């Protein structure tokens, strides 16, 4: 396990949505055999996994931090402890860590914890965030609870469970989820449906999967450039003009510093001056990951396209600001 980072998959979803049942099914997949599990609490569905630990929810607020940048001190300790025990031979080595959150958890502090700590970053990297939505209560939960909306908005994969119990395809829930998060793939995960390990395994760090992953983000958003529920909007910023990396980095840092709590996800590709290949940027709230490269442009089309999922922000205001600060500051402008 040394020399190679351990992929962390975050499994979240509202109370009673079926997270543990899904996790139990995923862990039976052969390719996920070397997966360690951290859970906030042991639920009704027993997990008899070899590498299973419980973590108390002990959130520490950074002195200078905002709520979404709280650091989960408990989680950090648990992750380092697991790594240390594998290193000492007390438990088997593991190549993947699945973290199952509580039903009311905000995923952002978990992402921030992983990104903020240099030791954790050295051993772990964030993989897909998988959010479980219950076909029976999902629509109601999304309408009534901000926690449920946020869990859906930050996901890379949305899994609709219990669809076998409703007797009909959850079309309206599907539409609702697409409006909340057009970049995530939506799959059915009821007990009668096959569950694929690719929910965890195919991600941006997988050289074979990353091109298709980014193309999917952008294709899903092709239908319309703006989707919204009552308070969460997803919109895209597009330009054919090659961007100045310095101006883009300063603009996005400034935007996230001031509005980071309201920006749930940012995902996209950029055409940067002097770089032939697409540069992939992605992040959750204040946390932006290091940029990655793709080998080719999605659809063969050069250009920048940034998908933003935000709560209470005017897409037009963000676009005007981007135009003025990033496009207006090109080196030859």
């Amino acid at each position, binding site marked *: 396990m040394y020399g190679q980072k351990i992929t962390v998959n975050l499994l979240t979803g509202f109370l009673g949505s079926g997270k543990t049942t899904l996790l139990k099914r995923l862990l039976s997949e052969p390719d996920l055999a070397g997966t360690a599990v951290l859970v906030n609490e042991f639920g009704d569905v027993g997990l008899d996994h070899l590498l299973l630990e419980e973590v108390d929810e002990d959130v520490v607020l*950074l002195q200078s931090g905002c709520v979404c940048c709280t650091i989960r001190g408990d989680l950090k300790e648990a992750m380092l402890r697991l790594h240390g025990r594998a290193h000492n031979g007390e438990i088997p080595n593991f190549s993947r860590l699945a973290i199952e959150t509580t039903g009311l958890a905000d995923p952002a502090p978990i992402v*921030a914890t992983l*990104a903020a700590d240099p030791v954790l970053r050295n051993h772990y990297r964030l993989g897909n965030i998988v959010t479980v939505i219950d076909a029976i209560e999902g629509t109601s939960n999304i309408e009534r609870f901000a926690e449920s909306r946020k869990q859906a908005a930050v996901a890379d994969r949305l899994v609709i469970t219990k669809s076998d119990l409703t007797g009909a395809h959850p079309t309206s829930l599907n539409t609702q989820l697409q409006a909340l998060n057009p970049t995530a793939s939506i799959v059915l995960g009821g007990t009668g449906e096959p569950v694929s390990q690719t929910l965890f395994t195919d991600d941006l760090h997988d050289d074979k999967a990353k091109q298709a992953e980014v193309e999917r983000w952008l294709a899903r958003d092709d239908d319309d450039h703006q989707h919204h529920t009552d308070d969460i909007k997803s919109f895209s910023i597009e330009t054919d003009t090659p961007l100045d990396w*310095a101006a883009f980095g300063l603009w996005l840092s400034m935007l996230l510093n001031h509005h980071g709590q309201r920006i749930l996800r940012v995902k996209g590709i950029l055409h940067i001056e002097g770089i032939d290949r697409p*540069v992939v940027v992605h992040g959750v709230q*204040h946390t932006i990951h290091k940029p990655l490269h793709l080998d080719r442009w999605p659809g063969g089309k050069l250009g920048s396209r940034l998908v933003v999922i935000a709560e209470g922000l005017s897409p037009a205001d963000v676009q005007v*600001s981007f135009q003025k600060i990033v496009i207006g*500051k090109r080196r030859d402008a």
Partner: protein
Amino acid sequence: MCGLCGVFGVQEHWSDNADGKRRQPAHAERMHRLGTAQRMLKPFGLSLREWAGRYVIANRTGKSEVIEHLGLLWQAAERLTGASCDPLDPAYLEQL
């Protein structure tokens, strides 16, 4: 890297290099970033200079802070001005 969380001994930022590699940007690139940041700070009455691989941000009265990387720029700017630095503010955009 989270700008707010980056204060804990982290001396790199996601925007350091577009290729995602862990290294200092080249001198010319650092100077270009410095110039771009200076233009963005000017409407707030703030100045920025490079110092020993770090940056010093200062207000008009000379009060200053050393920051490790530009991911910490806007938090420092808000502390020194005592006001918000909002990139969506039409009045700010007008002054650029």
